[in-house]
């Protein structure tokens, strides 16, 4: 049923991605591809993977941006992009067949691939590009929030998180219940000022992104002294002398 759940649970599982920490290593994208090639959504078809024009289905893509904020303050921001499991996902409501649905119990947005007719309308309705069409299987595919891992009691408790979270080498990705104000990740979002992507469109994404912390360019911004001159020895190279006197000093010293 592609109408949204009428009585959703308060549980809203999702990801929090820290753009301050992410180093753009693409490990999350690769781990996602690896796990999901064998999971519910698998295979994630590749076309000509070793050819001149490789193409394929990925649920997670890491973009790198140059972010400039005035003179002399340019950062590289690495941005992993995946399904945000929106509270009001138009990708679900536009689906004509009932293949797309949002789970009432935890808010995960899924595609039942054996009901999908491959009309691609959901990918048009998603502003974030979370859905990719598998031309080989003729159906739409998307991030499952690793629904086949997070509830899987055959795995160790520590492994019951999405593949992208478990593999992140810098812990830039966090998984949890964003519907619970007291959960660790909800507190992280509150502390760091987590944001919705494209709030203008009103999709109410569950996943939150933590913006990069303000850049600390100069010593003074870290609490250290503004300049090393403050801590230099008073007679270091006669640095307090007038340049003319320094020249005279050097000439007479020869």
């Amino acid at each position, binding site marked *: *049923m*592609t*109408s949204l759940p009428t009585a959703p649970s308060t549980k809203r599982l999702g990801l929090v991605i820290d*753009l301050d920490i992410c180093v*753009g290593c*693409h490990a999350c*994208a690769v781990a996602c591809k690896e796990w999901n090639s064998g999971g519910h959504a698998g295979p994630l078809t590749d076309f000509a993977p070793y050819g001149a*024009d*490789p*193409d*394929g*289905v*990925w649920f997670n*893509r*890491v*973009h*790198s*941006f*140059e*972010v*400039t904020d005035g003179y002399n303050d340019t950062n590289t*921001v690495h*941005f992993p992009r995946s399904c945000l499991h929106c509270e009001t996902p*138009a990708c*679900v*409501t*536009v689906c*004509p*067949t*009932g293949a797309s649905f949002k789970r009432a119990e935890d808010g995960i947005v899924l595609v039942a691939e054996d*009901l*999908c*007719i*491959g*009309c*691609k*309308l959901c*990918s*048009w*309705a*998603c*502003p*974030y*590009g979370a859905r*990719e*069409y*598998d*031309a080989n299987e*003729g159906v*739409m595919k998307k991030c499952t929030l690793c629904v086949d891992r997070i509830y899987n009691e055959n795995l160790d408790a520590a492994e019951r998180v999405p593949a992208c979270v478990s593999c992140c080498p810098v812990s830039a990705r966090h998984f949890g219940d964003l519907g619970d104000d007291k959960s660790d990740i909800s507190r992280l979002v509150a502390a760091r000022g987590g*944001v*919705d*992507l*494209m*709030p*203008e*469109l*009103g999709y109410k994404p569950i996943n939150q*992104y933590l*913006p990069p912390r303000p850049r600390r360019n100069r010593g003074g911004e870290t609490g250290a002294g503004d300049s090393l001159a403050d801590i230099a020895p008073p007679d270091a190279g006669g640095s307090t002398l007038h340049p003319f006197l320094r020249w005279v000093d050097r000439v007479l010293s020869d």
Partner: protein
Amino acid sequence: MHPAFSVIVFTVSSGIGYGMLFWLAINATLGNLSILAVRVWPADLWFGLVAFGIAFIAIVAGLLSSTFHLGHPERAWRAFSQWRSSWLSREGVASVLTFVPTGLFAIGWIFLGDSSGWWLAAGIVGAACCLATVYCTAMIYGSLRPIKAWNLSDVPMVYLALSLASGAVWLGPIARIFAIPFGWSDLFVPVALALAAVLKWRYWARIDAIHRGDGTGRMPTRGSAIGLPESKSVQPLDPPHTQQNYLMKEMGFAVARRHATKLRRLSLLLLFALPALAWLLALFLAPLLQIVVLAIGALAMTIGLPIERWLFFAEAKHTVMLYYRGSELG
């Protein structure tokens, strides 16, 4: 947005068919009104057979064409199930329901020679169903918030106006072949053409304003797409993949955009100027020449519609392209 050939054929062809059925019902209503001195639009067998035949063939061909771009056409029947939330599903349901009253209307007209009473009532219900179906078709596009050039109230109005205009333009030469008296209902042609031209012109002015950045409402920016404040300037540095992926092929289509001005002029000429000129010329010509001139007008319109529809896709930009290089939404 990538203009899929099958989707263009679908909206153009079914639009012409629904427009023809609409005008057949409206004209039959006029024909039955006793205030007119001359009995117009009689339920003529051969005219009915050809006009209804072309209309239904156009509709069925369009609907079949729409299934060609599906990954699983054999599952298309599932698309009738989600009419509560999905405009695509509503379009499917409406298109099937429309066959019932319009089919009855056609049976009365063709086989019983009767386009009055209950048969006419079925025709009028059918005309309303035709409008509803075209509206649903347009809302498949009009309801998509990530595509600003589509998410406008102008979109269903343009689709409806073009469906009505093309239906009227097609009926003209067919009615003359069978020497159907049509009285002043012939005026529907220039009126529908003028309405469609004005609405299409207004649509283009509106999307130009949006793409210039002085559209109404807040638009997503590169900054808001990655969760950074407006004050930051954000430029793509490294893409996630070296070659084009599904998203870029489907949403990043930019070929016809480069030729937009030329194609707009061409579609104005084919869609509106030539059919209107043909209608005007026909007023002064002998019956046989009328048929020729009006058929040329209908042909021009039928070539112009796919160009207009192609542009409708090619000029529409999707927010996902904010993540990629060289594709500002503005």
